[in-house]
């Protein structure tokens, strides 16, 4: 998959160098405006021109309907329900490593490659894991925890062993036009000009909410409780000059946001839904990461038969906003993950 960025450009170049028969595909996922994601016309143009440069065919796949159904609509619904979704992970789960993989199978291809900063490694027992990318700052293993053994067996991540500057150097040496293109980071279907609040406001009702402290005293208000996230510090309209205060509770029913100190967020356990182990259960200590670039913390994971899990922290940790991915690692390997409830 070629997004038109430097990472996937180099991923394609490396596969061509290795002698694979490579076909580039750019996904058209969103019909609206996009200034940071993978579906703008200029990004498609960049991907196509890199493919031309590499001498490979390039196609544009329209997965707009599936993207709306599996990523955008749940994104809005999750916010309406008070959760903090991670749309990139849902896109990986339903589109990039599902619908695209299924298309690739029908078209006769053996594998789907992307430009993610992560690696696929095969263990002595034959099973595969996602491993952290060589560039710790760019590591994207967290958003790939949804890949099961079947998907992993058909996934190639060619740049996972490179640092970003090596990727750019390779692109420059190969004469790829994307060599110095800036990274994209934001949610691809929301433009910077429009912003999250306006995007969601067009799709779900936004509810003004009171902001109170842990004693129940009113300290401010926010325009939309749907835009507030557990652990949030900024954008609460609180006067400065005090110790940092965080969102420690969100009550949708009474439209109340509670703020408190960091200690008010600490919990010994975190409940997780939809837990899946990459290969098999890990009964011992694991390191659990709860955001894309968060620090992993020691824990044990106890799962039930229905995909529910309890993460028991070795030391109390901040509660995770519902909807965020909770990913377990052993050393550099992703061993399982689920969604915080």
């Amino acid at each position, binding site marked *: 998959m070629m997004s038109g960025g430097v990472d996937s450009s180099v991923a394609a170049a490396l596969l061509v160098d290795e002698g694979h028969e490579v076909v580039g595909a750019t996904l058209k996922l969103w019909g609206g405006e996009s200034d940071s994601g993978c579906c703008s016309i200029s990004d498609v143009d960049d991907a196509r021109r890199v493919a031309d440069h590499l001498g490979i065919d390039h196609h544009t*796949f329209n997965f707009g309907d599936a993207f709306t159904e599996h990523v955008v609509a749940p994104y809005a619904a999750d916010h309406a329900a008070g959760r903090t979704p991670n749309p990139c992970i849902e896109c990986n789960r339903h589109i990039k490593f599902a619908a695209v993989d299924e298309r690739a199978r029908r078209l006769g291809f053996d594998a789907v490659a992307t430009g993610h900063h992560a690696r696929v490694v095969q263990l002595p027992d034959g099973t595969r894991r996602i491993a952290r990318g060589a560039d710790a700052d760019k590591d994207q293993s967290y958003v790939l925890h949804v890949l099961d053994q079947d998907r992993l067996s058909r996934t190639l991540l060619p740049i996972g062993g490179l640092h970003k500057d090596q990727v750019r150097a390779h692109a420059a040496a190969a004469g790829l036009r994307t060599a110095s293109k800036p990274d994209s980071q934001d949610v691809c279907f929301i433009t910077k000009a429009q912003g999250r609040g306006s995007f969601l406001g067009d799709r779900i009702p936004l509810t003004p909410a009171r902001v109170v402290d842990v004693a129940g005293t009113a300290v401010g208000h926010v325009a939309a409780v749907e835009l507030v996230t557990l652990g949030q510090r900024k954008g609460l309209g609180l006067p400065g000059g005090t110790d940092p205060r965080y969102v420690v509770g969100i009550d949708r029913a009474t439209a109340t946001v509670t703020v408190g100190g960091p200690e008010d967020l600490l919990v010994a356990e975190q409940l997780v839904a939809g837990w899946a182990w990459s290969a098999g259960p890990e009964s011992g200590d694991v390191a659990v990461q709860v955001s894309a670039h968060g620090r992993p913390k020691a824990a044990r994971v106890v799962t039930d038969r229905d995909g529910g899990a309890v993460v028991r922290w070795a030391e109390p940790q901040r509660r995770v906003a519902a909807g965020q991915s909770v990913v377990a690692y052993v050393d550099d390997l992703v061993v399982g993950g689920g969604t915080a409830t």
Partner: protein
Amino acid sequence: MPDAYLDHAATTPLRPEAIAAMEPVLAGSLGNPSGAHRLAREARRLLDDARDAVADAVGARSGEVIFTSGGTEADNLAIAGITQATGRRPLCSGAEHHAVLGPVRAAGGSTVATDHHGRIDLAALERELGAGPPIGLVSAMLANNEVGTGQSVAGVAELVRRCSPDTFVHTDAVAAAPWIDLASHTAAAHLVTLSAHKVGGPPGIGALVVRDGTPLAPLLRGGGQERERRAGTPNLVGAVGFAAALAATVRDRAATAARVEALRARLVAGIGEQVSDAVVLGPPEPDRRMPGTVLACFAGVDREELVLLLDRAGVAASWGSSCSSGASEPSHVLAAMGVAPELAAGALRLSLGWCSTDADVDAVLAVLPDAVARARGATAPAEVSAR
């Protein structure tokens, strides 16, 4: 090059007559036709001759032909030009080309229903003409570009004349031009759109025929070329190639249409034999559709995958319309025709042209069944799978 080119409705190869006519113009360093010297007069003469040839093909007078940059500009000029000149809104059917739908919507116009073959619903048109603010223009394509359905512009014009005598009639004849006599089929329209590259001329040139007495505000203002209706230095080499291609098309039309109709019959029969549940859209009667287009739908197939599989097997085909990114967009034409979305999702347009041969049909029929089976999820044969 693919083994077989079945996308003539998107663009068709240059005719040798067009190449022969353009070569001396390209090499000849002629002047600007608007100039006052000998080289300018030579250019002017070539442009006049080209205009005469286009006028002949459409049954128009030379002064009624406005050269444009192509079909899209001609459609825009017709719709915006009449809307601005009359102060009244335009109408068209929902199965029109985007080059018509876009300017109709931009001018505050609306769309009316079609029948299941994509022809404008005359009863719905009559209702719309009698309701609301007066209509300045009705645009009705002579043949549909995705399905190939032909439409009686005379019938539409007759209704318009009866219900709303001040309303002008435009027809986009781009998809019909390779196949049927334009002079007789467009005689009832006040404005006619043509495009060169669909008849074996070069891309980048087209024409809007505007019958005398039809008011038209220009889109492009400037040096007053094309009788103040389309400013800009004329595309002389394009006009010359267009005229030559159109003349050759008219000269060979009857024979080409009959030959391609036979190819199409073989193609449709072969598709039906090999993929028993294929659904070929459009009217079956040859006099109600163009010979060049086969729009076949395969349930359970994603058209992007089918076109890609055919491409990899050496067959150039299309799903109908495309956006500039190259991705497929849901077909508004099939939606207007009431085709079920799951059938429209598996639409394949195979379009033949002036230089299509039996070998093209053979090549498609040789690979289509396997491509459809694979798009439906059959296991790929090992020898064509990628590493």
